[in-house]
């Protein structure tokens, strides 16, 4: 990994971080490969080890469905937290724009480990909350900016 510690295990001692990461199974994605699709069952959380993952949402443009890149994630970042939030379905599509390696951590394995190691579970929970919170705050601000433009057009 290019970062010292992936965001999922940020703040954990090295041996505990290593133990959490050992729960994951490495996956290699070729350029253009799909990691998960919109609406699919979310069973795993993913940590990017190398390469990049693009998160997209579909839009209808000129009568065709087009995937629009909403976010791009880099090594060390966690994605696929829909695996920890009911109803456990992905709300975006994830693809690898270039050859990419990820670590797939199954929800069940992570939750079982956190139950057995509450201190680690607390730290991991806070880290996931930070990832989710950051996404929420960014998109909340983007939505409000768009609403301000709508109001500006209405009152123009």
């Amino acid at each position, binding site marked *: 990994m290019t970062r010292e510690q992936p965001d999922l295990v940020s703040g954990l001692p090295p041996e505990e971080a290593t133990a959490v990461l050992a729960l994951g199974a490495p996956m290699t994605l070729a350029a253009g490969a799909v990691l998960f699709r919109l609406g699919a069952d979310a069973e795993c959380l993913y940590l990017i080890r190398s390469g990049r993952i693009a998160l997209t949402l579909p839009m209808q443009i*000129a009568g065709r469905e087009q995937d629009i890149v909403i976010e791009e994630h880099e090594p060390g970042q966690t994605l696929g937290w829909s695996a920890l939030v009911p109803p456990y379905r992905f709300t975006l599509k994830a693809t690898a724009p270039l050859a990419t390696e990820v670590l797939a951590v199954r929800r069940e394995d992570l939750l079982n480990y956190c139950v057995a190691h509450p201190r680690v579970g607390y730290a991991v929970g806070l880290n996931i909350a930070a990832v989710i919170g950051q996404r929420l705050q960014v998109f909340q601000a983007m939505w409000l900016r768009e609403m301000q433009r709508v109001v500006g057009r209405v009152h123009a």
Partner: protein
Amino acid sequence: MEMFLMVLVLSVVGVLVSGVLFAAAMREPGRADAPAFGALAAREEERFFMLRPAVRPAPPVRVAADALVLQIERHVRLEHAAAEAFLLFPTFEALHMRTLSPLVR
């Protein structure tokens, strides 16, 4: 007498042939010929210069759609960056800071 008739017939034939040729040369281009010539000219024009957009209508639409996708993705990146900047220093001005996005001008 035979000689005279032969010369007379040849002269008449010659006058007729000359008349037909003259009429053909002086005639304006016929309407019947125009479509064939026009179609031929159009094919030549399309083949060598490809000036007629109606020949391939699909690519311009596709190009426009692809360009729009790129514009939207650029817009999203700029809006994302603006939102992240707002989160670092949350103020009203930062929240509504303008970007260079071509979609909001």
